[in-house]
């Protein structure tokens, strides 16, 4: 059996997220109430197109501005952990995303305004954020589609484990644009019939959401701990998983071994594509028998490269409050009996497994528990 990717526990000294509902506490409360942030929206913004389910920050247009309108929202989110030492060798920053500022390149192409280009590349987008927040230059940038945030957390854990960093700030942001909404719509997995049940569609369907989050990882500070990570990359197909579910099983097995004997609940990836949902639910039931499985993208939409950290912040809020939101936006029948549609009390549980998947058959998961 594969060993976990990183085994030294890292404490969660601080963690929060930003969704259309607000911060982690507000998002957690909205999910407990069963609210859905996804709304039918034109896939190409002001250019129109089919209405698809998008969850945008209140008042934010899909089309990019110069400078990007999301920058102030991100700065507000990060204000509680602002400090002069982030970005130094001992307090590095990891920034993760699948989009970064790529919406600015779409704006450049549409408007011809050259000023958009400076924020369009990953390094250009992060430089904009770095300068705005006053970080130093020790900033690592990870981009692996929808498991990006997990890689930042793994890297941060390893920096702590090796003793080369005192604390690490992991930041992730993905703000939607016609670039990404148009791409997913081209793949025919955004539900133009929204809010009709996605189960009626042959392949299922997903919604997309704005999302950002951060986590400060520390060796000794924090009430929650990320005990172990696991990664697996199938390299089977760009947009499909191995039909036998081996990739899901390979990612979960090391965590199941670490957590043997403990009572856990599982926050799955759960985008809404039927085949991946079936494979994930089956693999979770085998790796963690009896563990309730929840997913929150039916409300928040898929926050892409940031989903791992957005959902970490919500899972942390759930562990602290003792209440886990159910699988908002889904309905019976579910793939397995373990899928929890309604909120539940988690005070008798020892922790949670949080899992994400990505293009290329990429899988990532970690074990979150009380320190």
């Amino acid at each position, binding site marked *: 059996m594969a060993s976990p990717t990183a085994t030294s526990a890292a404490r969660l000294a601080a963690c929060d997220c930003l969704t259309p509902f607000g911060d982690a506490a507000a998002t957690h409360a909205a999910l407990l109430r069963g609210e859905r942030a996804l709304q039918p929206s034109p896939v190409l913004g002001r250019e129109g197109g089919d209405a698809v389910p998008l969850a945008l920050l209140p008042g934010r247009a899909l089309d990019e501005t110069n400078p990007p309108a999301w920058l102030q929202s991100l700065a507000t989110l990060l204000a509680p952990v602002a400090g002069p030492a982030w970005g130094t060798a001992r307090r590095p920053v990891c920034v993760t995303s699948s989009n970064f500022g790529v919406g600015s390149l779409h704006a450049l192409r549409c408007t011809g305004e050259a000023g958009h280009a400076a924020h369009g*590349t990953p390094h250009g987008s992060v430089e904009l954020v770095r300068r705005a927040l006053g970080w130093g230059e020790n900033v690592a940038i990870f981009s692996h589609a929808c498991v990006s945030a997990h890689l930042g957390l793994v890297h941060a854990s390893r920096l702590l484990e090796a003793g080369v960093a005192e604390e690490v700030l992991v930041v992730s942001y993905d703000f939607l644009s016609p670039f990404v909404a148009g791409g997913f719509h081209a793949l025919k997995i955004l539900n133009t019939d929204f809010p009709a049940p996605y189960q009626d569609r042959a392949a299922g369907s997903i919604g997309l959401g704005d999302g950002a989050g951060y986590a400060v990882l520390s060796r000794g500070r924090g009430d929650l701990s990320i005990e172990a990570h696991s990664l697996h990359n199938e390299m089977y197909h760009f947009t499909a998983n191995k039909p036998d579910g081996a990739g899901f099983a390979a990612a979960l097995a090391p965590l199941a071994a670490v957590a043997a004997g403990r009572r856990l609940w599982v926050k799955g990836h759960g985008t809404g594509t039927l085949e991946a949902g079936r494979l994930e639910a089956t693999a979770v039931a085998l790796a963690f028998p009896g563990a309730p499985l929840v997913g929150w993208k039916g409300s928040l939409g898929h926050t892409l490269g940031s989903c791992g950290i957005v959902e970490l912040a919500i899972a942390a809020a759930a562990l602290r409050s003792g209440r886990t939101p159910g699988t908002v936006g889904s309905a019976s029948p579910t793939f397995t009996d373990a899928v929890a549609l309604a909120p539940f009390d988690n005070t008798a549980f020892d922790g949670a497994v949080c899992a994400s998947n990505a293009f*290329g058959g990429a899988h990532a998961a970690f074990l979150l528990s009380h320190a």
Partner: protein
Amino acid sequence: MLERFIQAVRTDAPGAEEPAATRVRLKDRFAPGAVRRMTQLGLFVGAVLGELQPGEDDALVYATQFGEGRALEGYLDSFPSASPTLFQTSIHPSGAQQGLIGRQRCVREFFPLAGGNQLVATAVQAALLAHAERVLFCGGEERGTWLVPHAAASDRAFAFALALTRTPEAGALGRLALEPAADVAGALALPDWFELLHNRRPFAGAAAPGWRLELEWR
């Protein structure tokens, strides 16, 4: 100090080669028919990485500042009828994934990094922190077209792949180390890193503020 030993190095310096010529030059490195769907960067990286025979237990670290510049340009040009194929191939780590998917080679750990001046330092750091016995560190760029004047695509093409191990096994080609150094300032850009590898030149100096990189050849 973080360090590993270099067991193998592969580089490709294709100059101004156009994608069609790259397909012809490298088609024998991939499964029949596969190159038609691959990007130029996917061909460059897939070829050098393929020579190192990636295995499931290897950790793979991939560094590119701009990624699939031409796929990105093509995807942007495809609006309002967005191309699903170009969307997929314009996604950041596709340059490394294309060859691995073609060969059906799963890997447990895959760390794709982006970035500007700090890219080499952070990618080397990720490689040296990996738990795997063997780490494959690869990267590269392809030349863009209309995004180049906007500094949003690379103006040159190159690819590299290194095999790194924890111990100096017999035949090690060199050593790669990264150590904290409070008084160090500066950066090592990805094209400069490539030139060091391609010409087997040693280096000892700043990789990032507070980090000194050593590259030695034997």
